[in-house]
């Protein structure tokens, strides 16, 4: 390919004469050099200072090889890419490169002048900690790589990138520790990602359905993190992280259910307190899912098994309610879901007003009007609050809660028990990239009990978890010298 005046017009034509495509012409060693770039994604100040100004101010003599002079004298501080076709040059431009068309040259040159526009590194709203690092991932994959690199100073850290999306050509990164991660899992993830055929990837969640094995399952099969310290922690256990340009969410694989009961705060707090909090979280999860269903079944079928005093209290408060306990609870649950959805989507300044309307006006008034009973409100409120102990699973819990209510109303406590065993059985059957979903409980893994309901001291957690498929040859967390002592 010979670069000529036509090359420029060809490129412009291929880009449909888009208005944000800018060109500048500069004379260098008496030869016309055209610079082409996309205005909004190119750092024009950098381009002017490091490319245009040196070219213009260069005292030109005579030369046979303008391209060589350009590379040596002007672009010596830059990584120079060479493109042998217009399409390659366009692809470079779309990634923020400024392409340099030197008349008569064999190749088109390109320099990375990308202007990275992203928000500042902030604490993500879903992973707030009391003590511990507050840095969260941003939408820029490059910044995110830097945040990981900042914490990991080893040549074991591997960052591989792929391009996914026919139109968006989104950069997707796979990060892992070569000495810790299971190579087969890395290969499988890479294979699955490279086989994706899609026109665009706008967020990490787009990749989930391609990576999870059970596509139609209600349950989450892939972990997601928003903070580099959590990601590195997971990678140290053998997991693989998947970053997507434009998304602050990093996917992690393999995933086990217990991960969602753990919080980054846990590792920065006293172990005794952590054990207590984790048990509370588990109880919270159980409350969130089955409490309304159990209430309905007790009210409809099994009021006799309630202690007498408790039964009398319930009877007094539910007297005169026109609806059955099932309708009552269902109404409140749906009301709660609607309020939640509305609160989530409406502008922040409406939030307070919404809370007042929801909690005071709707809640108080429906009770006073005798439409619902106070115990039902209390049960749904308790279930609703405990939902968000594990916010990443709230959507799944919400569906399970509805199922539990319907089953409780139709079959009573017996149905609820069968439902619970069914859910356990369903989850027991899941495997996420060679890791059992309910591990280390089922199957029981003795080594991993140190980070289940109790958290051992960091100093005592000598081995990597076996629940996660990782490199077994490197199972000891500490170095040889330390472990020998």
């Amino acid at each position, binding site marked *: 390919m010979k670069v000529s005046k036509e090359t420029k017009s060809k490129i412009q034509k291929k880009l449909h004469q888009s208005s944000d495509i800018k060109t500048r012409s500069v004379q260098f060693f008496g030869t016309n050099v055209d610079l082409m770039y996309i205005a909004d994604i190119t750092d024009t100040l950098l381009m002017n200072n490091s490319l245009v100004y040196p070219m213009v101010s260069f005292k030109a003599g005579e030369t046979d090889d303008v391209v060589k002079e350009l590379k040596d004298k002007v672009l010596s501080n830059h990584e120079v890419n060479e493109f042998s076709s217009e399409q390659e040059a366009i692809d470079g431009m779309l990634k923020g490169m400024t392409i340099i068309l030197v008349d008569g040259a064999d190749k088109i040159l390109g320099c990375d002048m990308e202007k990275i526009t992203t928000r500042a590194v902030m604490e993500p709203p879903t992973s707030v900690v009391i003590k511990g690092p507050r840095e969260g991932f941003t939408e820029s994959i490059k910044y995110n790589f830097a945040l990981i690199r900042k914490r990991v100073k080893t040549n074991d850290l591997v960052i591989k990138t792929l391009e996914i999306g026919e139109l968006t050509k989104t950069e997707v990164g796979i990060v892992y520790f070569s000495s810790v991660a299971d190579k087969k899992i890395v290969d499988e993830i890479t294979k699955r990602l490279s086989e994706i055929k899609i026109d665009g990837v706008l967020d990490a969640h787009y990749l989930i359905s391609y990576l999870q094995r059970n596509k139609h399952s209600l349950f989450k099969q892939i972990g997601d993190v928003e903070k580099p310290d959590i990601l590195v922690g997971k990678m140290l256990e053998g997991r693989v992280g998947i970053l997507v340009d434009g998304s602050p969410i990093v996917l992690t694989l393999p995933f086990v259910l217990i991960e969602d009961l753990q919080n980054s705060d846990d590792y920065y707090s006293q172990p005794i307190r952590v054990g207590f909090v984790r048990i509370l979280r588990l109880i919270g999860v159980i409350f969130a899912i089955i409490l309304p269903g159990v209430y309905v079944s007790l009210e409809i*079928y*099994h009021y*006799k*098994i*309630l*202690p*007498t005093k408790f039964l009398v209290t319930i009877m007094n408060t539910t007297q005169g309610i026109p609806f059955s306990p099932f309708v009552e609870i269902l109404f409140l649950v749906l009301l709660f879901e609607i309020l939640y959805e509305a609160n989530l989507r409406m502008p922040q300044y409406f939030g307070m007003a919404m809370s007042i309307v929801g909690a005071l006006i709707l809640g108080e008034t429906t009770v006073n009007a005798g439409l619902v009973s106070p115990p039902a409100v209390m049960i749904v409120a308790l279930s609703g609050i405990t939902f968000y102990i594990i916010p990443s699973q709230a959507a799944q819990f919400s569906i399970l809660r509805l199922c539990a209510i319907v*089953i409780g109303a139709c*079959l*009573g*406590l*017996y*149905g609820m*028990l*069968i*439902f*619970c*065993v*069914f859910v*356990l*059985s*369903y989850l*027991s*059957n899941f*495997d996420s990239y*060679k890791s*059992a979903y*309910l591990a280390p*409980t*089922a*199957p*029981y893994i003795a080594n991993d009990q140190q980070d289940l309901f109790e958290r051992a001291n960091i100093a005592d957690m000598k081995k990597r978890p076996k629940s996660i498929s990782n490199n077994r040859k490197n199972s000891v967390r500490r170095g040889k010298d330390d472990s020998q002592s």
Partner: protein
Amino acid sequence: MTLKVNFRQLSILVFMSFIALKFLALPSLLYLDSKNMSWMVALALMIIDGLYVFLILDLMKKSNHHNILDFMKATLGQVMARVFLVLLMLKYALVIANISKGLEFFVVENFYEKMNWVVFVLPLLLLTGFMAYKGVRNIARVSEIICWAIIFGCIYIAVKSLMGVEPLNFLPLFDEGVAPLFKSGFHHLSWFGSCTFMFMLFGKVDFSRKKLGQMIKYIVFSILLVMLIYFIFFGLFDVTAPIHTFAISDISQFSSGHSSIDELSWLVVSLWVTAQAVQLALYSYCMVETIKALFNVRSNTFPIIAVLLYIFMWSFVGEMTVGLEKVFLSPYASIVTLIAQYVLPWLMLIGYATMGKIKRQKFNDSPQQENVPEEKPRVRAKAVKNEET
């Protein structure tokens, strides 16, 4: 990851199987025959069952990852293998009938004033079908989770009721000699033989981390737990024991001192339903495997449907006593258990010992059964279609 169960999971399955049928109608039925020596019958038969676990484990190891049919064919011959397989199927069918009927009456008596069991059996069938389809690893994992809740529940009930126990209720011992013990033991043999399910786990147990100590602990613990509950049951109820149909729920009601089940006891009693449901799934799985082996069926679907229909059929038998007296307490049922559990392992052992070196070598060298489930042809076809498009 293999689809085998590990040794710990096997120990838990044995534990669950040892206690599952013992806390329902058995104590009151035992009392009818052997009065205040009933606990001795249970103790003796449980110890025998415990010893048989190790015999079956030894056979499992000798089977060298072959399934039960292959092993029986090699040790007992083609015809006898099928005959014994039929006997095993009958044993599983008996246990399934006992669990499903027992569960029905347990639930009705404790939780509902009136219920249509035909409707109520449907969720149970769904669960059983699902778990049996997913296989023994799934059942083992669920057992791993719920067994702790059940253990704590039993201990809670036992500790709460312990104060009312009258130790003198156990005396006098042997006032009618030892004959009632043997009579009662044989009569209720079908309630024991708790390790017959292990036959269907030949080739499905991972022996790489075999810890016999762990198995012994679980067996001893199950015997102690059963004895503790029996001690409380007979100590509390004495001559009224026969009218207390369900030991686990009746003990807790007694402890509360009034007609309704008190604070946490109902939770414990309801947990027992989960134990029964998982046991039903385990024995259904065993029956499915037997049908598959007997009729050379590879697919799970039809054997599961057959087993579910069998369970469903039992919901039309109105009275529990009819079911129990006609089927479970008949001498035929005891004979089936006697042969399937207590005679068959010895026959296999003798068969293996007399196999001869060459035949044994040939058996060991023959291809082992696959543990990876067959890929569904439909899925594969779809994948090919996708590739083409």
